[in-house]
């Protein structure tokens, strides 16, 4: 790495060349509507779970792209499936199936 004269915190780096893309790819294949997301955050604003506990459904997207599987696994378990996110989504992302598909992807990637 080029020495810039300042340090980079190791655990905050995402190496996009080496990260685990399996879940992202599985998700794109099985629920392509996830690609429509513009990151507006309506889902998070409407979320029933997010109102009571630290849970950010929009952030799941980031976790998936970064390949942060462990964090993702922990987060996704809080979802109550009520479907408000899907109802408010201006892009028509099929969010309840996104969650189910991520669960399936997590099972398959172990």
């Amino acid at each position, binding site marked *: 790495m080029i020495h810039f004269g300042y340090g980079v915190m190791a655990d905050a780096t995402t190496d996009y060349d080496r990260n685990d893309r399996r879940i992202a790819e599985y998700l794109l294949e099985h629920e392509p509507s996830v690609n429509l997301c513009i990151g507006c955050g309506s889902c998070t604003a409407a979320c029933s779970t997010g109102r009571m506990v630290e849970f950010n459904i929009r952030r799941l997207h980031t976790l998936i792209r970064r390949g942060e599987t462990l964090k993702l696994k922990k987060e996704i378990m809080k979802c109550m*499936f009520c479907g*408000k996110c899907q109802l408010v989504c201006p892009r*028509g992302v*099929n969010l*309840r*199936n996104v969650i189910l598909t991520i669960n399936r992807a997590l099972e398959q990637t172990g």
Partner: protein
Amino acid sequence: MINFNLFVLPFFLGLIYVVFAIGRSWYRWIRSLPASDKVRLTTMFRQPRQVLLALGEVCTEALLHRRMWKRNPLLGYMHMSFALGWFLLIVCGNLESRYYSGSHLNAPYYPIFLKFFIHDRLVIFFEVFSVPGFFRFLMDLLLLFVLSGLVLAMVKRKRSKWFGLKRTAEFQLTDVVSLTCLWLIFPMRLLAESFTAGYYGSGGGFLTQSLGNLVMTVMPFTSEYIPYSMWWGYSLVLGLFFITLPYTRYMHIPTEVLLIFFRHAGIRPKKWYSGFSDAEVLACSRCGVCIDVCPLNEAGIVDAQAVYFIRGLRDQYVPESVSRMCLLCGRCQEACPVGLHTDSLRLIKRRELVSGQETDFSWLASAAPGPVALETRHIPRQAEVAYFAGCMSHLTPAVIRSMRRIMDQAGINWVQLDEDGSVCCGRPLMVAGKDTQASQLMEFNKNQVLATGARLLVTSCPICYRVFREDYNLPVRIQHHSQFILDLVKTGKIPLQAHFRKVAYHDPCDLGRGSGVYEAPRELLTKIADLVEVGQDAHNAQCCGGSLGIFTATQEQRNDMAAAALDVLLENQPEVLATACPLCKKTFAKQSPVPVKDIAELVCDAMPNPVYCSASGQSRRAGSYAT
């Protein structure tokens, strides 16, 4: 005379095989029933009344096809002619053979091929009044009855619309083989009997004898091998039909009988696959009635209808997407002539799909760093009525606002359980197959309700209403707000002033078919509005397409379903579309050209001193439809 000929063998072996195959299946299903269900079954057989009732249903459904008649008379006649006609042919053929053999015990093939063995020489005219003559007349009449059904079945392949079916189930190869055999059986019988009657110059009835005589006039043959080969053909198609029966849709014939007995014994679908599910899957005749009623058609989805899903279960191959491609609206269940629990079969499959997946709702118990501290939520105020708006209602604030005003107006001591946002009722998880996970949420909500000391739980969302009723086992009364408000209006606690013109009511799936609440919303609406007729309503209401039951439909497909439902609802030009479900409201509001309002909103608007309850955008226009 030894009544045997080599040609009976295909039939006889086929019969032995099919009886063995059916017996083996029945034994397996009954063995795999849960112990409690086995007890139910044995108790039923000790009660003659129950057995008689079950037998009665076997007659009306498996033979007469009463529910098919209700759907379409032509379709009913077609099914009845096959089932009842064939059954009576067997019974009467048996009686007839007893007359000739003088014995109660005949080989099973004897009655079937009786006309080959017996060429009774009796006068043809006025023979109807003699015993054998009567039987000949009867048997020919029954054969004609079945053949008329066969002609209809052939017509149905080309013109299914005449039978009230826009679409019919697609066939598999085994179905085609079996169907061909079935279709050939009765014409073969007609030919064999006619040719024999013609050759011997006697032994036939009004149909077979006349046809036989005609054949002899047109092409007089002198060899008995011609009728003999017909008998071979008849026996072969019968045998082949029997051998293929256990592997084709015709397995529904024996299975439906068992299923009717299961149901009369009080056996209900379980959460997991059992012998009962097997019986339901195999009792599906693939008649295709469920295809037309499925709202998925409107979105161009043609491979996930109940008939195909159940076929997939039988073939042990259902794609994950097909299991999840169902609104669970219950329309197919309502229409099914066999009374299959299509929704619970779908849920069983979904449960299997997610059995390894976990959830973590430990945050329910502890205070969380979220925007609302959880401790405060644990101690709801004591009240008479606990109001649970439901997640979806939080997206339609006008409904909650209206409910609050109505309850205040009625002077009720109420408390809202989910004022600061709700813990989900659990049904959305359950329709995904996650029942065990849902139980944690249910436990939380249950404690919330109990803590209020309320005697009545009112919910604005039919999804919540259904799960509270079916799965919570709460010691309090549970009402949907349409029932609750109706009670308030009836007891005069809410004064109603305004009257709206032309309101169409949409039945939410979970409230109507799901919970059987059809009348309360209608009665309530007639007090404040003139209801316009809706083409498909109540039991047959279309789903709005927004259902939480479906996972794999895209937003466009949902929109298509909503548009189709709206077409039906708005046929008679209502000025307002009323519903009793926040999810239906939200779904329709996106596309409806007329305002969509919840019943609670309409009642609130109809109250004196109109502080308009409806959402602000529409409330300005409210005056235009209120008269």
